[in-house]
Each structure stands twice: as structure tokens, then as C-alpha cells.
């Protein structure tokens, strides 16, 4: 990993002030002019990103590759350029589009009047899925590209029917990859998914669970239609985080949870848990476990070098920079810990006293031999169990033998 500083110095009629804004990303490519010595070709990008995608999928990771950026800045180009060049075991592909929280199949002829009718459901064994989505068996790279092209063509023609749909919709192309392996001499399967996600414009593209950015896009609306969003944002933002983290409640890093400020052990604060009946977007729902967890996520932000795109470029970079934090975090329930820590402290104190008194005993009663030593040790051992009665019963015989220890 290396860090890149992006120098956004712009001049021209847009803004004559000098502005330098720095963002850090893992990789940074210049793919404008092939003649440029710094030019990064598709091959270079693939070497850096694509190979890790493939080796990850091969190992059984779910992979998610997001492309985000201004229309025309090369999102689709980046996606399309990823060649699938490894030996194929068992692959099938799906291609879907999410528009206005509705899903449609990009690889199947659908009803023209109501194309977005598919529902997202979840299965405990196979995860979130789109009901009724067509699956296509693929055996080579050509077929994959064929399907991609078919779906993209469909998206474009649809754009003339649905106002502005392509710039406001997300598309997800998923390759399900299954390898048969032998584990402990038993046939077994490694299944993984590669998701290529073409994100829509910023106002709908938030894969974080962060609500305030959704309303940022919605802004102030002319009707009360969005009252629900306003209220749910309210409820979402007011969820209280105390220093007590709970694995019962997983939240995204986007919120202001004070991960760094826990006062471990001594707290018993609780986190207020509310239920917000407005669902997070279908996109996040479908990709739930492709974000964070046992998956690898790559975000490609494409930007244009034109000064006229300054605003879009800035918002893209800001977005991409935020996206680095979109990882779901498990939190630890501290209820049990508080008790345990107190108990353990007591035990440590007791052990220390025991060991000190043991040394005293050794000095004073060394002549009486190992029996005395034994009794002291036994006491130390058993007190640890916190079973006072048990201890009393078992140790009473020792106490009789060695009254000095009482």
C-alpha cells in the first residue's frame, strides 16, 4: 500500500484561488493520454487490482469492486476491462439493476411497463438473493463479456424510457464461483462471489448505513413525502453510543461511535437500540456481507481531469475517501466482562496474599515438612473456585492438621 497525494490545483475561469486538497488512497492512476509517460493502462490497473480480486475469489473470499464517479469518467470502462482469464471451474453470472429501490433483471426480457418488480429475499444458507433473477452459466471469458455487453445495452435503451434512470440506478454484475476441492479427502466446495458494482450518482449511491447523506441528496423536498426519511434520520442519528460497545448491535463506522474512548471494565453503560422501519437501500442489503467481514472490497473512483468537473471531482474524492470507512464492526458486549474483571481482580489479590503467606509459612514451619506446604497450596487452589462451602468441606481436614493457617 502506498499513499498518494492528489493535487487539485485548478485554474481557469471556475475559480482563480489556489486550492490544494489532499486525499490518501492506496493507488492512483492517470489514464488520460496513452502518450503520457505516467499513463496507466488497463493492464497496469488489472495487475494491481484485478489479480488480487481473482486470487481472493480463488481462496473463497467474496469480492466487491465498486466503481464510482461522474458519468463519462470511465466507470464502465474500468469494469469492462477486467479480463477473466483463469481456468474456470463452475461459474454463473447474474446482472441486475436497482432503480428507485426496485430491482430488474438485465439479462432477461421483461415487461416493458413494469420492469422493476423483482424482490430481494434472504436465505439462511445462500444469503441475500433476488427472487426470479435469471442465472447464466458461463464457461469462458467471451461469454462473460457477452453477458456484460448485453446487460449494458439494455440499461442504455431503458434510459430513454425511464427518465434519467441510468445515472440514478446501480448495476451489479455478479459472478458466482464454485470450486470443487478435496478437504480431508472428502469432496467439498469453495464458493465465492465477485461483485462488480456500478454505482449511481452520489445522492443514491451511499453504500454506508449513514443516513444523513441520503437526505443530503433529498435535501428539502416540496412535499411531505419525505417526512419518513426526515424522521428516520432523526431516530438514526440519535442512537446513543456509550463507551459500552455491544456485539449485539453492529453499526457502521460512519456513525460517531466512540471506538477510541472506552473505559474498559468499569462501565456498564448501554447503547440505546432503536428499530428504524425504513430499510437501508437494496444495494446495501444485497451486498451486506460483501462489505467488510470475510470479503475484500475495492473501490475505484473515476474522475475527470477537466477543471469544469471540479465539483464532481471533489465530491467523488470525498465520497471515495469516506467509503474507506464503510466496514461493519462487531462490538463486544461488556455486560459479562464487568463481572469477570471484578472477579479476576479478587482472585489476583487472593493469589498474591496466598503466595505471600505461603512464603511466611515456609519460613515459620519449614521444619514440619511438605504437609504444611500442601495445605497452603490447597487453600490457594480452592479459594479460586469461589465455592466457599466446597472449599470448607475439603479443606477442613487440612485445617485440623495445621491450625496455624486458620
Amino acid at each position: 500500500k502506498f499513499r498518494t497525494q492528489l493535487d487539485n490545483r485548478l485554474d481557469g475561469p471556475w475559480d482563480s484561488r489556489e486550492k490544494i486538497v489532499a486525499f490518501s488512497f492506496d493507488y492512483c492512476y492517470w489514464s488520460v493520454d496513452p502518450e503520457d509517460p505516467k499513463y496507466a493502462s488497463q493492464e497496469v490497473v488489472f495487475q494491481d487490482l484485478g489479480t488480487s480480486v481473482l486470487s481472493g475469489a480463488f481462496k473463497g473470499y467474496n469480492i466487491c469492486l465498486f466503481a464510482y464517479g461522474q458519468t463519462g469518467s470511465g466507470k464502465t470502462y474500468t469494469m469492462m476491462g477486467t479480463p477473466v482469464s483463469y481456468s474456470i471451474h463452475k461459474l454463473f453470472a447474474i446482472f441486475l439493476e436497482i432503480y428507485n429501490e426496485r430491482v430488474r433483471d438485465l439479462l432477461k426480457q421483461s415487461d416493458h411497463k413494469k420492469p422493476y418488480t423483482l424482490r430481494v429475499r434472504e436465505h439462511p444458507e445462500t444469503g441475500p438473493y433476488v427472487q426470479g433473477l435469471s442465472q447464466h452459466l458461463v464457461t469462458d471469458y467471451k461469454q462473460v463479456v457477452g453477458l456484460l455487453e448485453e446487460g449494458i445495452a439494455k440499461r442504455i435503451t431503458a434510459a430513454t424510457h425511464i427518465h434519467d434512470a441510468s445515472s440514478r440506478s446501480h448495476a451489479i454484475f455478479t459472478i458466482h464461483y464454485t470450486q470443487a476441492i478435496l478437504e480431508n479427502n472428502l469432496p467439498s466446495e469453495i464458493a465465492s462471489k465477485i461483485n462488480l458494482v456500478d454505482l449511481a450518482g452520489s445522492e443514491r449511491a451511499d453504500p454506508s448505513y449513514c443516513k444523513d447523506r441520503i437526505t443530503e441528496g433529498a435535501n428539502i423536498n416540496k412535499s411531505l413525502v419525505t417526512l419518513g426519511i426526515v424522521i428516520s434520520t432523526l431516530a438514526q442519528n440519535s442512537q446513543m453510543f456509550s463507551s459500552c460497545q455491544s456485539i449485539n448491535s453492529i453499526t457502521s463506522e460512519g456513525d460517531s461511535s466512540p471506538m477510541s474512548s472506552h473505559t474498559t471494565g468499569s462501565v456498564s453503560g448501554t447503547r440505546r437500540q432503536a428499530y428504524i422501519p425504513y430499510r437501508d437501500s437494496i444495494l446495501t442489503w444485497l451486498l451486506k456481507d460483501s462489505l467488510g467481514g470475510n470479503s475484500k472490497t475495492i473501490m475505484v473512483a473515476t474522475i475527470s481531469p477537466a477543471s469544469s468537473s471540479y465539483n464532481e471531482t471533489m465530491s467523488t474524492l470525498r465520497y471515495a475517501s469516506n467509503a474507506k470507512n464503510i466496514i461493519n464492526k462487531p462490538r463486544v458486549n461488556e455486560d459479562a466482562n464487568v463481572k469477570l474483571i471484578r472477579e479476576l481482580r479478587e482472585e489476583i489479590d487472593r493469589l498474591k496474599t496466598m503466595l505471600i503467606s505461603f512464603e511466611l509459612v515456609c519460613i515459620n514451619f519449614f521444619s514440619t515438612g511438605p504437609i504444611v506446604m500442601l495445605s497452603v497450596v490447597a487453600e490457594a487452589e480452592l479459594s479460586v473456585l469461589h465455592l466457599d462451602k466446597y472449599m470448607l468441606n475439603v479443606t477442613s481436614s487440612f485445617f485440623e492438621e495445621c491450625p496455624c493457617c486458620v
Partner: protein
Amino acid sequence: MAAGSAWAVLCEKFRSAQSLSAVESKKDPETEPYRSKYGARQLLQEIKQLLGPEEAAEAGAAAAELRAVRLAALEYELGVNHTETEELSAGEEHLLKCTRLLEPRRLSRACVSLYIQAQNNLGILWSERDEIKTAQTYLESAEALYNQYMKENGNPPLDPSEHFMEEEEKLTDQERSKRFEKAYTHTLYYLAQVYQHLEMIEKAAQYCHTTLKRQLEYSGYYPVEWALNAATLSQYYLTKQCFMESRHCLAAASVIFSQVGQAPSAEDNEAEQDHQDLQQRKAEIARCWIKYCLNLLQSARKLLEDNIGELDPDRQSELKAQRKKEEDEKEKRRKKAVLFGTSDLCDSVLAMEEKVSCVCPLDFKEAREIFLVGQNYVQEAKEFFQVDGYVTDHIEIVQDHSALFKVLAFFEEDYERRCKMHKRRIDMLEPIYADLNPQYYLLISRQLQFELADTYYEMMDLKVAIGNRLEELDSHTVKKINSLAQLAVKYYELFLDSLRNPDKIFPEKLEDDVLRPAMVAKFHIARLYGKLITSDGKKQLENMQTSLEYYTFLVDYCEKYPDAVHAIETELELSKEMVGLLPTRMERLRAKLCPFT
């Protein structure tokens, strides 16, 4: 007569413009999204022409007055039209012209509504420019104007559209009032958003609440949507621990939702989908109720617990005495401020509220009542959110159910019964955990692993406490304690295993997000091995050795990655102590096992 018919032409034009803008524009093709809006604009400008230039006002103050107001109404329409077609600057100009014309007469019956609506639109316009503070100024001034007008005058004011209506078409006072109130509701709703953007959260909530309230009063709402919004608002109040307000929202949500007629028999696809949606909303409101019950119980627990999380009897009697005195009055006063609805609705809401308390329960009996209400809603929510199709939702509900049992157990004095409650948690969590594919539900899987581990730990602790009370610790109890401890270890280990990469290797360096959970799991396992009971000395040595290894892991890890220290300071400190003490103890034990070597 000529003047009369000329006026009729103007009115007709105005009406056409409005219909173009409001109705026709929805049918505009995507290639020309603003075609009808531009058409409307054209008409409005024609009317403005026909009204003639300002100076040409022939005779009389009354005529000039009338003309000015009409012009203002036109400027308003033009302003809105430009804003809607993304020409903000022109829109602003027209709206400002409108308010300038109305300024001196803004408190009159003819102008107040128009003025408020112009300010609403200026508010929207500035918020679109991301100048929230400016938007706030306009909207707050609209709010103030409404209040002033209602105080000083209060008669139903003219609707802006009436300025271009013939006398016989003019609206009834009832309709005028309705439209005026609606405009004001919008003011409040925009203000709610403005306050939210300015992070004035409490104020935002208050305005949302008022908006909901006014929707009810003026019947401007869809029941399902309203119910869902009220239920959502209840969740905001929950996080603020305002249980009375939260319950009120929920009760109102349930009552309003019950007024929705059931969708006609599910024959075609669409009706089926509507039916599904309705069921889902119902289940979602139930889930809000579950959270209500859960949070109320948890709040009570927080009030009552001592420093190790047990019920503090002194605290309990103190709070009981205190409650008698104040609660009632305080609640009544607060309640007035938020009450929803007209009188008949109020009764239903009150009846709904009576089913569950909104004050913190202080003993098992009270806690149990709330628990039972919560449990009923768990059943209701699960009817829709079934495992097949709604895995995440279903599990979240089960987790809440488990949490309800957990907090109820806090109020239970009898250890055996308390243990049984935890067993119920195990019984509901274990099977769903077993069915879950961690590849797709890793995070939930991990939550369940941790919760199962903690629950087994809790049960083991209870068994130990029960054992302590016995005359003699029987082998059955010892066995039970050990098996519970081992199960707790098993689930902590499963959690740790989930961190392994696909090659089954435990990560050298833990990611920040799992660092603390992983360390806590290691720490708990270390402790659990220290708690296993055995009379076999060798076995005991082995357990101590394992315990030592886990404590050592924490110490070594933090030595290698000092960054990790801040996440587990206390655990690290204790682990270091144990790493220092355990070997000596083991040494002694070894000496005891073979004393003569």
C-alpha cells in the same frame, strides 16, 4: 362588460397555467421534462402583460391595492415555476418581488397565505443552494407570521389562487382554512428539515412531531405512511429515554394503522404485493413496540443495578418511594404538549396506551408485564419476518427476544428460574445459529457466537452461585458447571475461528474492527479455563496451562503491537498479573502432585 370578460380571460389563462404546471407536467416526455412548465410560464407572463405596467394604475387606492396583490400572486407563481425548472436566480427574483409587493399588507386576509407560501419557497430555494441558515430565516419568519396572524386576526385567509378567480368561484371559508393550514404545515415540515441539517436534533424532532399532529388534525395523510412515521418517531424518543412520548407515538401508530382497510382479496399480483406490504408495515410497527419494551426494561435495569450488575434492593425501595410522589403529575404536564389527534381518536390511543406502562418497572412483577407485551409483539413480528426470506430481520427479532429474557432475568431473584430464562435464550439462538451460513451472514454469526458464549458463561456463573449455597457440592452440579463453561469456550472459539482466513490461519495482526472482540474472547476463555473444576490434579494443571496460554496471548500481542493496548487496557493489566502468578501456582501444584521428588 368588456372589463368583466377581459377579467374572465385572465382568470381562464391563470387556471390553464395552473393545470399545465400541476397536471400536464407529469405527462411530459423525458426528452422535454419541463415542456408544460414552460407553457405555464408563457401564460403567466401573458397575464402579467395584460395586467399592464405598474404606473398605469388608473384610479383609486382600492384598484391599486387589488392590482398589487394580483401582481404579487403572479410573481409568486412565476417564482415557483422558475425554481421548479432549475432556474434558481430567476425564481428568487420573482419571489422577492412578490414579498416586496406584499410586505406592507402581509397581515391582511388577502395576503397572509400568499406571503407565507412565498417565504416557504424562498426557504426551499436557499436550502437547495446549501445556505441552510438563510433558509431558516425565511421559514422562521413564515412561522412567526402565521402565529401573529392567528393571534390578531384568525379569519380564514384567501388562498393565493383566489386572486385570479371570479367572485362566484371563490372558495368557502372551510376550504380556505384548510389550504392555509396546509401551507403552514409545510412551513413546519421544512423547518424540521432545516433544524436537522443544522443538527438541532431536539427541535427537529419537535417539528416532526407537530407536522404529524397537524396531518392528523387536517386529515392530510395516508394512514399506513402516517403510522410508520409515528412509529419511527417513537424510536427517536426511545433513544432520548422519553418513554411517555415514545409510547404515545406507538399507540397512535397502532390505532391509525388499524384503520387501514384490509386490501381486497389477493387475486392479482399487485393486490398480493399490497397485501404483503401491509403485513410488513404491521410487523415493522410491532418491532418498534419490541424495542420500546426492551429499552424500558433496560433503562429500569440501569437504574436498579449495583456495580456488578445485580439488583440493588436499597436502590429499589428508594425509587419506589420516589415514584409515588412525583411521576403522575410530571407526566400529565408533559403529555399535553405531544398529544395526537381529535377526541375520538384520543380515546382509542389512550386505550392502547393503557396496555403497557411507560414508567420504569421496579420489580419482577412490573417487569414481567412489560416483558409479556414485548413477547407478544415478538410473535407478531415473526409472523411476517420468517427465517425463509427475511433472515436478517428474523434473527434481529430473535435477538431482541433473547434480550427481553436477559433483562427479565435481572429482575428474577430465584437463581434456578433465572438460569432457566437464560436457557430459553440458548434454545432460541442456538438453532438459528446452526442454520446460518457465515459466508453470507458473518456479522450476525459473530454476534450470535458472542451472545451464546456470554449466555453460557452467565449460566455457569449462576450454577456456581447455586452450588455455593448447597451444603455440599455434588458431582452433578460440578458436571453442569464444567459443561456450561466448555460450551462458553466453544462459542468464543467459534468466534475466534471466524477471524481465520480461508486458509484457516489466525491473522498475525488483527484488524482494528475485530481487535477488541477477539481480545475479549481470548480473555474470557482464559478465565473459563481457570474456572473449570476438577479433582484430578493433572487435569487441573492442564487447564491452568491453557489458561496461561490465553493470558499470554494478550500480553504478547500487545507487546508486539503496542497500538492494541488502548483497546484492552484493563484486560491487559489483569492478564499480565495472571501471567506472573499462574506459573508459581502451577509450580506449587506440581510440587503437591509429586511432593517427594
